[in-house]
C-alpha cells in the first residue's frame, strides 16, 4: 500500500523537494565528517610521530620545506615536539569544544525562545529584555569579566560560550515560534483538547527542528572562533590541555623562527569554520521557505 501511495504523489510534492540544497548539504558534510574522522582515528593507527620532546631536533620546518624532514611532516616546535601529533590531538579538543559549546548555547536559547514566542505576555517581555540586553553588550567584555573572575577552565569556557551564544538562538527561535503558533493546526489541536505542553513539545519544536539544526551548525563555527580567540589570549584552553586556539598562542612567540607552529592550526580553524558556516547557510536556506522560493 505504501509503495502505491508513493507512486500517486501529486506534482506538488515533487516540485517542493528542491534538489540543490540537499546535494550541497551532502558535499559540505563530507569533508567535515572526514576531518572529524581523521582527528579522532589517526592517533589509533600509530602512524603519527612520537609526541615526546627531542632537543636535538627543535624548530624543524615541515617536510615539504627546505631543511625539513618527513619524520615530522608539519615540523617541530621549540622543544622538538612533533607539530602534527599536537595538531591532531588539539583538533580533537577543538571539535569537542565546538560541539559542546554550540549545544550549551542552543539548548537554553531554544528553550527561552520557544517559551517567549509561544506564551507571549510577561514571559515574552522578560525574555526579550534579556535577549536585547545580551545582544546590546559587547560579548568579549562579558567573557573577559567572567574569566577574570573565575579563572580559565573548560567549564568556565562553556559558561562563556553559553552566555554569549544563547541570545542569537533565542531571538531566531522566538520569531519562528511566533509564526508557527499562529498556524491553524495549533488551534485545531487545542480544539481537540491538547495541552499547551503537548503542543509545544510535539508540534512546535518538531516544526522548528530544521531551523534549530541550522542555528546549531552556525553556532559550532562561532564557538570554535570564540574558543580560539580566548585560548590565544591564554584565557580559554590552557596547558597542559591544547586546542588549535592554544597552539596559536604558543606559535605567537615563535612567529619569527617557526611560523609553521601557528600556521597549520589557524588554517585548520579557518577551513573548519568555513565549511561549518557554508553548511549552516545551506541548512538555513533549506529550512527557510521564504528563502527557498527565490
Amino acid at each position: 500500500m505504501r509503495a502505491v501511495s508513493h507512486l500517486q504523489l501529486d506534482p506538488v510534492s515533487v516540485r517542493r523537494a528542491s534538489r540543490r540544497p540537499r546535494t550541497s548539504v551532502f558535499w559540505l558534510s563530507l569533508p567535515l565528517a572526514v576531518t572529524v574522522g581523521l582527528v579522532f582515528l589517526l592517533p589509533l593507527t600509530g602512524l603519527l610521530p612520537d609526541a615526546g620532546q627531542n632537543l636535538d631536533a627543535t624548530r624543524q620546518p615541515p617536510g615539504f620545506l627546505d631543511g625539513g624532514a618527513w619524520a615530522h611532516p608539519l615540523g617541530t616546535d621549540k622543544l622538538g615536539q612533533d607539530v602534527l601529533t599536537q595538531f591532531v590531538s588539539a583538533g580533537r579538543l577543538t571539535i569537542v569544544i565546538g560541539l559542546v559549546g554550540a549545544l550549551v548555547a542552543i539548548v537554553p536559547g531554544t528553550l527561552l525562545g520557544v517559551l517567549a514566542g509561544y506564551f507571549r505576555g510577561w514571559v515574552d517581555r522578560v525574555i526579550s529584555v534579556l535577549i536585547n540586553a545580551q545582544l546590546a553588550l559587547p560579548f568579549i567584555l562579558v567573557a573577559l569579566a567572567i574569566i577574570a573572575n573565575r579563572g580559565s577552565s573548560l567549564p568556565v569556557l562553556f559558561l562563556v560560550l553559553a552566555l554569549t551564544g544563547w541570545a542569537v538562538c533565542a531571538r531566531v527561535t522566538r520569531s519562528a515560534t511566533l509564526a508557527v503558533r499562529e498556524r491553524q493546526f495549533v488551534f485545531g489541536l487545542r480544539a481537540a483538547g491538547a495541552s499547551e505542553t503537548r503542543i509545544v513539545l510535539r508540534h512546535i519544536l518538531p516544526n522548528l527542528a530544521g531551523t534549530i539544526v541550522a542555528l546549531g551548525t552556525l553556532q559550532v563555527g562561532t564557538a570554535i572562533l570564540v574558543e580560539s580567540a580566548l585560548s590565544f589570549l591564554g584565557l580559554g584552553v590552557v596547558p597542559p590541555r591544547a586546542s588549535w586556539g592554544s597552539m596559536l598562542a604558543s606559535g605567537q612567540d615563535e612567529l619569527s623562527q617557526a611560523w609553521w607552529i601557528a600556521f597549520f592550526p589557524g588554517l585548520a580553524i579557518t577551513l573548519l569554520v568555513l565549511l561549518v558556516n557554508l553548511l549552516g547557510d545551506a541548512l538555513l536556506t533549506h529550512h527557510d521557505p521564504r528563502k527557498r522560493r527565490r
Partner: protein
Amino acid sequence: MRGAGAPHPRTSEPENPVLVVGDLVVEHRNRSTGEVFRAVDHVSLSIAPGASVAVVGESGSGKTTLAMAATGLGARGTGDIRLLGHSLSTIGRRELRRLRPEVQVVFQDPHGSLDPRQSVRSGLRELRALQPRRTSWIEDAELLGRVRLAPEILDRYPHQLSGGQAQRVCIARALLMRPRLIVADEPTSGLDVSVQADVLALLQEIRASTGAALLMISHDLAVVRSLCAEVHVMYRGQVVEAGPCEQVFVAPVHEYTRELLAAMPGARWRSRR
C-alpha cells in the same frame, strides 16, 4: 463500534442552545502603534442544536474573530459566551479542555490546519490518544470513507495532499470528535472551484447525519444560501442584519446586505428569475 451516524449522548436538554454569544466585544491592540481596533462590536447570536447558522461579511468584518472568540480558541473579549451551557468567562482551564472537543473548527487553509510533520495516520492517532473514549466509534479507514477519501491517504504527509484532499482530512478530523458544533471558517475559499461543491455537500451531509450544529463563516452568499437556514450579516464588527436566510436574501433591510447581494455573481439573473 457504533454504526455510522451514531446519535450523540446528550448531556443537556435538546432545546438548550449549543452556543450563545451575548454582547461580545473583541478589541485588538496594535503592539507597535498602540492603536485599538474593535474587531467585534456588541454582537449577539445563538445556535440551537443541529441548526445551521451563517455569518457573512467581507474580509476584515470581524467574522473570524467572532468565531475564534465564541469557541474559546482566540482572544476572549468582553461579553458572555456560553458553550453548551458553560460560561467561558467562569469556566476552569481543565473543564474548558474537556469541553473543547465538542466544538471543532474547519479552517480556510487546509494545509495550514495540518501539522506538516505528521502523516494523516499519526495525526489521527494523536487525536485518538487525546480523546480515547470520544473517538473509539469509528476506524480510520471507515472515517476516511465518510469523507470520501481512499485509505492510501493515511500514509501521506500534508504536502502530498491536494487542497481538496487536505480539507477532507480536516473534516474527517473534526468528525472523529463527534462535535456538537462545527465551525467552518471559509472552508472552501482556499480550494479549486471544482471541489468546492463537494466539500460543502460533505459538510451538509455530516451535519444531517450526526446532528451537529454548523456555524458557517463565509463571504460567499451562494454558499451560505445553499447550506444554512439562518444568517447574520456582519459589517465593520457589527451584525447589521440577522434572520432566516430566505427572508434576509429576498427582502434585505440593511443597505449593506443589499450591496452584498448585488455583488453576488449571477445576481441579476437570479433576481429576474
